[in-house]
């Protein structure tokens, strides 16, 4: 197996890794963690492994990775032989990608937090999380609009990168928190483009692309 993932099915951050593994076509060991209701990520065993008490945790080679951006870079560097998802030798592109990797943590702290409240009853300052979530969605919408005017469909450059993988989950899951996609046409088209990628995997709240299955016709 290529790596080991401490995983929670409803976590958008864990889903980044599951999704990228699907797209790259790589297998991994998944260990389910009872984040809710059991708070197992705060258990002694997992706190020993990851003192930050967060999920996911990736055991990759001799590394213990706890930040999803690091995981995505590691996976791309190791398994993407074409170097398109993380074009390491292209200074401008990698810099732009890292900007969006940073922004993806804003999505977690806004939409992700609002979703924990709205879906799993967690104690969160919901008004602020929702207001900041709208700001974040508008920023992605503006970027994708500009990319569309340039003729592109992705956050950076002409092909999908780990920036798209990192930002996709919490943008796609925004309706879980009550933030619908109705006002964001560029986001809707981008979500569809990612969902249509070969190897795409779903998570609860993000449905199968039934358009691409034809058995029912």
């Amino acid at each position, binding site marked *: 197996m290529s790596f080991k993932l401490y995983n929670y099915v409803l976590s958008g951050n864990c889903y980044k890794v599951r999704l990228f593994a699907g797209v790259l076509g790589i297998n991994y060991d998944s260990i389910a963690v009872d984040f809710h209701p059991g708070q197992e990520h705060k258990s002694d065993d997992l706190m020993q492994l990851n003192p930050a008490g967060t999920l996911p945790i990736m055991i990759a080679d001799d590394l213990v990775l706890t930040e999803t951006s690091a995981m995505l870079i590691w996976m791309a560097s190791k398994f993407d032989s074409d170097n398109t998802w993380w074009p390491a030798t292209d200074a401008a592109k990698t810099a732009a990608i890292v900007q969006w990797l940073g922004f993806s943590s804003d999505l977690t702290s806004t939409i992700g937090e609002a979703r924990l409240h709205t879906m799993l009853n967690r104690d969160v300052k919901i*008004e602020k999380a*929702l*207001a900041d979530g*709208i700001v974040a969605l*508008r920023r992605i919408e*503006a970027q994708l*609009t*500009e990319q*569309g*005017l*340039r003729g592109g469909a992705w956050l950076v450059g002409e092909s999908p990168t780990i920036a798209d993988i990192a930002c996709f989950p919490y943008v796609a899951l925004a309706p879980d928190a009550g933030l*619908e*996609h*109705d*006002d*964001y*046409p*560029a986001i*809707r*088209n981008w979500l*569809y483009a990612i969902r249509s990628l070969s190897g795409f995997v779903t998570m609860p709240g993000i*449905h199968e*692309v*039934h*358009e691409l299955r*034809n058995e*029912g*016709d």
Partner: protein
Amino acid sequence: MVTEPVGLSNNLPIKRVMPARVGDTDIAVWRSASGVVSAWLNRCPHRGMRLSHGFVRGESLACLYHGWQYGCDNKCKYIPAHPALEPPTTIQTMAYTVVEKHGVLWVSLDGTPEIPALFEKLQPVRSISFNCSNEDVLSALAETTLTCDDGQVLSASDMQSQNILILDNPQNKPKLAVLFQKSSAANVTAHLLADNSWSIDGLIRISRWCELVRRRAEIKIPDNRRNL
């Protein structure tokens, strides 16, 4: 009933469905594999699921919940739970008139579309939604200017109607057209079209100007009135 612009054509590719609103009415707009556009009440007649969450299979839109399929004639074509059944033509969605013109999707709830005949050779730029009133957007527009590629400065003038704003040369060749889709007192969407004088950088400038207008428009309303 006025005909509302609900979106830009290029934001609804073939085999896709999108949500839209005309006044209080929740609508699903979709485009079949062959390009036919339909606009329906956003509710599956079977069990009330929003059809905008559905998926297009060829010339039918399927509901995500139980997969019931409806064709471009609004009639039910297939019920997966009863695959042998040929559904009666009496099972159908609630359909509205939708017209595609000037690169814009227009929906009329009462069947008589009235589309302004002003625009020719305009290209879609973007749609943008505001959490404030139409008046707030108009007054923010009046405070801002936009510079064209040739250096000409556009400012809000020449209101054509409540729902359309033309910037520069209102008679026949606008450089920029702003179509307003009014959803509620606290929510309005603008669809922008530009003529072919704009470069890609110019179109991006228009997009950023929209953001500027929105910041100005939304700052006019106190936080406690803001519709989040």
